[in-house]
């Protein structure tokens, strides 16, 4: 139970004879009926508290440096005397700052001010303390405390409690002394700690190429696509050095046109190399609050998510799009049929503008001459990249269906004249056209150079 009258007795203790003082106060102000605010956290806040009663710990992620450190959060003309301002510097931005004093102060003089500063040290708010309960003043003109609230919506990196003035004041022809023991309530600002990603380059990444054992792909060599990342940690705009940042890789489900696959999806790697597969990594920030790491794209296009986690801070994610840009759906037409859709690759007719135009021109001319539709099987997936026909992240037979420049044409039911027609037309259409005889069922693999 707080007993406000006890400090009010003390306020006069060094100034007047004890018997006279206590009598006088008891007569003039028998009991302070109101209590000062309790030093506890309030509902609806992040619960930061800095109090004479609880010491320098704030109880939240933001720490505070109080000057003077002793006596702690106190202004008084009584021992221990501390009549200067109290300066509180926070480790990060805070909001909803409120101060409440407990002790004995004059009802009739300036009882102090609470001043807020931003991270640049600029004063951005000032509020004079006001008596918590003016009705408590009574005949002696003394009350237990004053309080102030800084405007909401602002973020502060420093607050100063300016002292009351004067500290000593007349009380029933005696000299009274002021004492205020403070509790400072505040919330940690939502963005107190920030995680930011920067990368070079920033645009979409092309898929990497890995060497394949498939004889159809024997000319492929390891061609990595890499990006350099920097993760920066700041708190209240200031860099946070020597902090561990945990990185993790995931993929957006079904991205890149890969649906319901078996096996484990390659995600790329935080380390480099043909066989690198580092999907979790911990880095430590330097003096500038930064840490760098590489990211090497997988062969499979899609959306990949890099998540950075720092203790006590919400994770930050950055989505990397691995894609062959410029691909579009061939779509349906009156002179061709799209075939080959599967449960694991339901949409596989994406090509470059050159390829799409060539396929349309070929089919239209073929239909004009032979009055039948061509049947186009796989081209590329929606964002290109490696096309694992079997949906297992392993199959590699479609190695030229990565760039939107390779398309399969079913030919097993075409006549010799019709296949010759296809070859002759395709050879004229665009670029360095080519065609290959493949597989089961027999089909041509049509290629364009763009």
């Amino acid at each position: 139970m707080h007993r406000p009258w006890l400090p009010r007795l003390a306020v006069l203790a060094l100034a007047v004879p004890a018997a006279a003082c206590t009598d006088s106060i008891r007569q003039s102000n028998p009991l302070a009926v109101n209590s000062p605010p309790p030093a506890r956290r309030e509902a609806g806040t992040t619960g930061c508290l800095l109090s004479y009663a609880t010491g320098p710990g704030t109880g939240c992620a933001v720490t505070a440096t109080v000057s003077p450190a002793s006596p702690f959060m106190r202004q008084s003309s009584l021992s221990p005397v501390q009549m200067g301002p109290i300066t509180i510097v926070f480790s990060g931005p805070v909001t909803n700052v409120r101060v409440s004093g407990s002790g004995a102060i004059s009802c009739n003089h300036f009882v102090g001010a609470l001043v807020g500063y931003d991270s640049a040290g600029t004063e951005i708010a000032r509020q004079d303390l006001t008596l918590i309960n003016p009705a408590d003043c009574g005949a002696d003109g003394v009350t237990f405390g004053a309080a102030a609230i800084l405007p909401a919506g602002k973020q502060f990196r420093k607050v100063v409690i300016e002292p009351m003035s004067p500290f000593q004041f007349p009380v029933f022809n005696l000299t009274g002394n002021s004492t205020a023991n403070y509790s400072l309530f505040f919330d940690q600002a939502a963005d107190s700690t920030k995680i930011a990603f920067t990368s070079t380059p920033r645009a979409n990444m092309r898929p990497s190429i890995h060497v394949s054992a498939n004889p159809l792909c024997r000319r492929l060599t390891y061609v990595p696509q890499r990006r350099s990342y920097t993760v920066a940690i700041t708190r209240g705009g200031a860099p946070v050095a020597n902090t561990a940042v945990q990185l993790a890789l995931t993929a957006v489900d079904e991205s890149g046109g890969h649906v319901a696959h078996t096996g484990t999806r390659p995600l790329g790697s935080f380390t480099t190399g043909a066989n690198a597969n580092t999907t979790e990594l911990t880095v430590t920030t330097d003096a500038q609050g930064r840490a760098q790491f590489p990211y090497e794209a997988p062969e499979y296009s899609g959306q990949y998510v890099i998540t950075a986690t720092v203790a006590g801070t919400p994770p930050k994610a950055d989505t990397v799009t691995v894609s062959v840009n410029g691909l579009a759906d061939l779509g349906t037409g009156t002179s061709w049929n799209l075939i080959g859709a599967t449960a694991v690759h339901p949409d596989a007719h994406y090509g470059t503008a050159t390829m799409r135009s060539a396929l349309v021109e070929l089919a239209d001319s073929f239909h004009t001459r032979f009055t039948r539709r061509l049947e186009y099987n796989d081209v590329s997936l929606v964002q290109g990249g490696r096309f694992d026909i079997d949906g297992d992240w392993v199959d590699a037979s479609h190695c030229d269906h990565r760039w939107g420049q390779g398309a399969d044409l079913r030919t097993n039911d075409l006549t010799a004249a019709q296949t010759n027609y296809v070859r002759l037309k395709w050879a004229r259409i665009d670029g360095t056209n080519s065609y290959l005889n493949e597989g089961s069922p027999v089909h041509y693999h049509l290629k364009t150079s763009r």
Partner: protein
Amino acid sequence: MLTKIFAVAAALLAAVPAAAQQAPAPGLDLDVRPTFQALPGGLLRATYVVANLSSSADSLWSFTVDAPAPAVSIAAPDADRWETGTMDHGATVASWGILEGMVGPGQQSPGLSYVAAGVPGIVQYRAVRWFPVPDGDESEPDPADSTAAPAPDPLAANTVSGSTVGIVPPPAGGTDVLAGRLGQLVAQACALGWIDNAGVCNSLQVKAVADADGLNDMLHELDAQRGKHVSDAAYSLLAGNARYLLEQL
């Protein structure tokens, strides 16, 4: 004068891109015989008979000539057996392809004709021997990788090219300009070997002037030398342009 003519011819030959010169035939040894027929409205019909000489090892599959004057019509000699095209890699051409029954060694094609507005000019032709579809190799490198070697084009490896006479847009300029152009064509025909006698080259060169008498003399000489020292290609080229110049006088 003869020396001068050969010097001009050599300079022109040097200016011809390497790709436009006769390339070693991958099994094809051809004789391309162009003829031209003037049509109303400034149109010209070019007809090619492509002889696949008995020295060839392979069958002729397609024949394409550049068409700087775009074709207004093109004919397939046999619609069931042949197909045609007028664009190749975005350029205007006249192209004929065989769907069935290739032109084997010792055989020749029927007349392959197209019509365009223009005059005879030297153009390039490309002929493809029939070859089976290559077996699969899908290992295409990233086309964005400038250091990666492009995949070989099987079509290019089975194509021969050379010079022949086609239809080019009517030349601009006055009669003196046209006469100068005619002289250059004489020099080019000689350099290409379409006129195989230096004396004939010299004689034709001096007749390439903006004068009706000279031009008529040139036509008479071409008629006389056709099939002797003047090939069908040279005859078509020079006679067509001499007549065009005569019409402008």
